[in-house]
């Protein structure tokens, strides 16, 4: 154990980490937005009584869960422009790719959350004369969302870590910036340590929040 840690060089390059973190956050936000919107839609479709809605949602969810995200990303970046003529930038491709992938998992969180609410709740809502949308919005979702928070935060953490795959599309997120830096400094150990700590610092507050919320809701019953 005679490795000599050298941090001063890393400190000199701190701007590189800040830049990388900014891109990581942007990527996370876009992917999350896409994942949430599409995930909610897919989750509702998946819970529907109508086959025309249920089947396509199930197919989408299964395909995205059964194939590697790396392949999905590369496919969206290289194959989509050829097939559709739409050429997206690196960050946009990565956001969309990670967002589409996360949507499949978020859809399952929504579906399971909705399914976990006792049927008596929707019976009661319907017997008052509420429609499907009203019952969902006012009775089912508010209760289901509490149960979704822990798995959702979990998925959020996963998603933020998945943004490192943006590096294969040459997106300058935190990991990619760090790898470029290593080529100049030859300090991989220090650099990767900093990357790990930074990710931990970005993700941990959410895990903490989720635990607090869970405790509070449990206390009120």
């Amino acid at each position: 154990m005679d490795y000599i840690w050298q941090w001063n060089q890393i400190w000199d390059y701190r701007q590189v980490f800040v830049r990388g973190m900014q891109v990581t956050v942007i990527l996370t936000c876009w992917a999350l937005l896409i994942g949430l919107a599409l995930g909610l839609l897919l989750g509702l479709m998946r819970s529907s009584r109508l086959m025309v809605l249920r089947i396509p949602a199930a197919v989408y969810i299964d395909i995205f869960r059964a194939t590697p995200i790396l392949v999905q990303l590369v496919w969206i970046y290289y194959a989509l422009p050829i097939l559709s003529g739409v050429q997206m930038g690196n960050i946009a491709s990565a956001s969309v790719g990670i967002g589409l992938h996360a949507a499949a998992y978020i859809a399952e969180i929504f579906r399971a959350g909705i399914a976990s609410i006792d049927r008596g709740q929707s019976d009661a809502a319907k017997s008052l004369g509420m429609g499907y949308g009203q019952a969902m919005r006012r009775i089912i979702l508010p209760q289901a969302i509490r149960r979704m928070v822990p798995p959702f935060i979990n998925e959020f953490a996963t998603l933020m870590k998945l943004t490192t795959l943006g590096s294969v599309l040459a997106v300058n997120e935190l990991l990619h910036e760090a790898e470029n830096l290593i080529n100049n400094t030859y300090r991989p150990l220090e650099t990767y340590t900093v990357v790990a700590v930074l990710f931990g610092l970005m993700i941990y507050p959410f895990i903490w929040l989720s635990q607090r919320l869970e405790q509070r809701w449990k206390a009120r019953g």
Partner: protein
Amino acid sequence: MSDAPIIRVQGLHKSFGKLEVLRGLSFEVKRGEVLAIIGPSGSGKSTLLRCLNFLEEYQAGEVRFDDELVGYRRTAAGKLKLDSENTVRRIRARMGMVFQSFNLFPHKTVLENVMEGPLVVQRVSRNEAELRGRTLLQRVGLIDKIGAYPPQLSGGQQQRAAIARALAMQPDAMLFDEPTSALDPELVGEVLEVMQSLAAEGMTMVVVTHEMGFARQVADRVMVMDRGEIIELAPPAQVFGAPESPRTAEFLRRVLH
């Protein structure tokens, strides 16, 4: 006009897959009448009640509420088609339903539970909804629990709140599915009292119950169901005193020991 039955069921058939649960029931409920439904477990009592406000679809026969077909409409060719959600909702809003497991909304206070239907379905003003809510909660003896959440209440209190929630829609009829079966014995009385006062006011009620005392004293008629059929439908004195069917006699012997 007011003599016409408010609920009219004709040849009602209902199956879950291959399992035939209701095998052609026909009966009527008059305005202001209290009909008690009794019968062994699994005989289809809950399913029948749920068909009345179309929480369950049925495969054959008719359910009519105030002369209107429930859940289906007749096409020009005379075939039955599922009715639009809006029509079904409008009919449901006129029938209150009370469940064995209360099914209050746990994320809303007692008062919010009672205001929910008037506010969201009937779109009355907040003031009007709150006035109705307070009046009804006063009536069922829960005025001091207005701000409580359902999990903080006893079973008897929850069921009284659930009755108030259904009444807030000012329904033309009330459906009760074993409203006291989930309660500790000492809490049954307070719920039955509320129901009895409703009956005395002339509310039309269909009550699935295991409380033979209630069926005997409050009901105008008692329906006995067995294996998806009506085996007896008569005033309580006749059902309990001189049942026509040996299956009724057998059932009553078992529940009354």
